[in-house]
């Protein structure tokens, strides 16, 4: 599919990966992949969550060591045993998670590890401050280099991370979903910045989920799927559906087996939910057998609202009615009693207890049912755990292996099984398929519609438009802590979702 031979004659890649394989316990993150980055060009790395993009970034920046395969710079094999060695070789990354230091100043965050030195190898703080100010100005960021990072907002922190990457005189710049936390205006500024870097002859690896971005900015594409190299080529020779097909490996309607469920009476009604800083005036109802999608950009306040709904944070005002009765939820334990359960986005930190065995994870909120007079009963626990994990088609060696040894998709199945075992009326799934392999993803979607068909009410928070479109009966769009729109039927289209989420009016201007 790719026309690699033709490209190679035109320009030599600055950086190439050849047959890189990286295995983690239970999952082959990269399976003999290749990748080519050319000077003055932007290569988009495209793949679903779990395709291996982050692992590639970590391999290129010296965080992970590949099990086999070669990294080539200018055709010569190199090794990056540490993050420092990758930086020294001229590879720098703007990471997906902000990896910065709250307590240090902006200038120090930009220069830590390579600060300008003066006499006696002392850090030249004045030069560091001036250089930082210059870089920040060059990317149009109005940030005082001397303030501490913890006093900055998320978007500003991201600009600091970009400034840090630029402060290293890099030949290869990796941008791992750099626009996730930025506003439309900031994204435009980032595009200008990328053009600027291209003009300087830097090779750029651009990782993004957003196809409009990729078509706006990239010169080349490379697709990974499930840790494998699928193909590469020039952007000018493909269209969006080509890329989607390569990325997903099958057409979209196959992935979302949404069954028609009979939507029944109102189960949950939320009135006037507000919080001092995170969200305001949230109103909606949820019916029996319904899948209600919550769409929005990262940071729109969806997770914050959901966590407040199940009693982790307190709203300043607002009423929850479950089955018509007012329900006061002050803690997750109250929420479980009321039949509302929440499958959090951060599986490792909030969802599963990784070092505990599968069966103990599943029975944790249901111990009241499996125990007798407060004493645990193993046979009951194994039986309950087996019932629910088998329904989800969990793949595991045994029920007493730690959840941490499973793949991401199977971990998610354990977390969902844990909540289904409590026999809830409402299940909230926050980014349920983030970072899991395609097979598990389909299983989760399949199961979600089965649950709805059985009469369970589902709230699905998702940032993936195909998932929202494919699974939801109705969609609520949130923006900056408020409900921006409620869409269903013909009003529900990718364009309207994006427009409401980004706050773009019909004229195409930002609100």
């Amino acid at each position: 599919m790719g026309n690699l031979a033709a490209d190679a004659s035109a320009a030599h890649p600055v950086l190439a990966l050849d047959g890189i394989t990286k295995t983690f316990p239970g999952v082959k993150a990269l399976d003999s992949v290749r990748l080519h980055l050319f000077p003055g060009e932007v290569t988009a790395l495209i793949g679903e969550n779990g395709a291996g993009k982050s692992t590639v970034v970590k391999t290129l920046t010296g965080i992970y060591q590949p099990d086999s395969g070669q990294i080539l710079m200018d055709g010569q094999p190199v090794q990056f045993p540490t993050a420092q060695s990758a930086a020294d070789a001229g590879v720098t990354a703007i990471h997906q998670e902000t990896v910065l230091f709250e307590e240090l100043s902006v200038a120090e965050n930009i220069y830590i590890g390579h600060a300008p030195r003066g006499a006696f190898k002392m850090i030249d703080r004045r030069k560091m401050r001036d250089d930082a100010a210059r870089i920040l100005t060059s990317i149009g960021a109005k940030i005082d280099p001397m303030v501490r990072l913890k006093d900055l907002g998320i978007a500003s922190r991201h600009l600091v991370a970009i400034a840090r990457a630029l402060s290293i005189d890099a030949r290869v710049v990796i941008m791992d979903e750099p626009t996730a936390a930025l506003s439309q205006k900031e994204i435009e500024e980032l595009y200008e910045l990328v053009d600027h870097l291209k003009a300087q002859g830097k090779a750029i690896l651009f990782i993004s989920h957003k196809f409009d971005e990729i078509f706006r900015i990239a010169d080349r594409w490379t697709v990974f799927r499930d840790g494998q190299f699928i193909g590469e080529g020039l952007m000018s020779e493909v269209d969006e559906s080509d890329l989607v097909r390569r990325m997903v490996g099958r057409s979209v309607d196959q992935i979302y087996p949404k069954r028609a469920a009979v939507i029944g009476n109102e189960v949950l009604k939320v009135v006037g939910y507000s919080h001092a800083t995170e969200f305001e005036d949230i109103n909606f109802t949820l019916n029996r057998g319904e899948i209600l999608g919550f769409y929005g950009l990262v940071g729109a306040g969806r997770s914050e609202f959901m966590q407040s709904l199940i009693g982790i944070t307190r709203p300043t005002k607002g009423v929850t009615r479950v089955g018509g009765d007012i329900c006061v939820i002050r803690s997750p334990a109250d929420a479980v009693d009321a039949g509302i359960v929440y499958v959090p986005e951060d599986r490792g930190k909030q969802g599963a207890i990784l070092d505990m065995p599968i069966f103990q994870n599943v029975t944790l909120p249901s111990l009241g049912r499996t125990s007798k007079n407060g004493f645990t009963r193993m046979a009951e626990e194994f039986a309950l755990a087996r019932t629910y994990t088998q329904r989800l088609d969990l793949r595991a060696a045994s029920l007493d292996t730690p959840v941490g040894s499973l793949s991401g998709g199977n971990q998610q199945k354990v977390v969902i099984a844990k909540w289904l075992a409590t026999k809830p009326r409402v299940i909230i799934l926050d980014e349920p398929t983030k970072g899991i392999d395609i097979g598990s993803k389909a299983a989760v979607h399949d199961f979600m519609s089965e649950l709805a068909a059985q009469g369970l009410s589902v709230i699905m928070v998702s940032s993936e438009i195909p998932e929202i479109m494919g699974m939801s009966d109705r969609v609520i769009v949130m923006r900056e802590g408020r409900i921006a729109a409620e869409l269903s039927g013909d009003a529900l289209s990718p364009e309207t979702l994006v427009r409401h989420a980004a706050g773009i009016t019909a004229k195409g201007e930002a609100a």
Partner: protein
Amino acid sequence: MTITTTDPDYSPKTATTTAGRRIPDRLTPPMVRAIKSWESLLLLVAVGIFILNSFASPYFLDAWNLSDATFNFTEKAMIAFAMALLIIAGEIDLSVAAIIALASTAMGLMMQAGFDTPMIVATGLMTGLICGAFNGVLVTRLGLPSIVVTIGTMSLFRGISYIVLGDGAFRGYPESFSWFGQGYVFWVISTELAIFAILAVIYGVVLHKTNFGRAVYAVGNNATAAMFSGIRVARVKMILFLLTGLMSGLAAVCLTSRLGSTRPSIATGFELEVVTMVVLGGINILGGSGSIPGVVIAAFVMGLVTFGLGLLNVPGIVMSIVIGALLIGVIALPRLWQKFRRG
């Protein structure tokens, strides 16, 4: 509310009929797992020390001598049980020895005021409980790190004892009070040893066989996920601080009774020996794993080492080298071995 096994949803009989492939409960039988465990390795060490001791000194294999030897660890082990649960839950209490001092001082005051044994004992236990509550409130309500809080209360509690007693001492506890630290319930079984044995069973059951014990593990492994799972994390931790305080109060009763007097310097350094006992027993200092049988064996190991070296006229301070080396060694050796095997 409990649901009987006839619940069609998950009874052992019907569970296999649902869709999906069957996942076995366990791959390794519990027996095999037990044999391969830290506890059995530790038991081997204990037996080894026992044999070594019996060769080293002719006085060792004597029922009364062995009974005496148990006093080396019984009081500390009482606290170690509660401390084990606290450490598994991801917290620590370094103020336990100071609680003993304060509880002992409070008992001394009651004794001076003319109260008899039941009131003295109740005061000791109550003081321990109040101190535990103080630690617990600071940690769970104000969200302070327990290591700093209890370093603070360690000074505060013992400091109050010093304010009350200065360089003086309380003496003259009633005759009946001596039963706790000097009495025997049956033949060579001392009161303290009996209390230790009962507590070992109670704590073992609570940690390994109850919902509360499961919650303790869950909180220690991942407090956030436990909270999301509907476990009242603050309440679990509060109960554990109260228990640790109560056990320190109980240890104060036994120790004061055994010594027959109270000085503000009583039980100095106990906190470190208790923590050592817990860590030696295989409890992860970072929380989340460990067992009560491990702590019981660790208590015997420490008692046997101290007693054996004592029989050989080795001074106490040198024993502390052995204890310190044991503490580091038992954790370092398996890790060194792993490194060595990986090459």
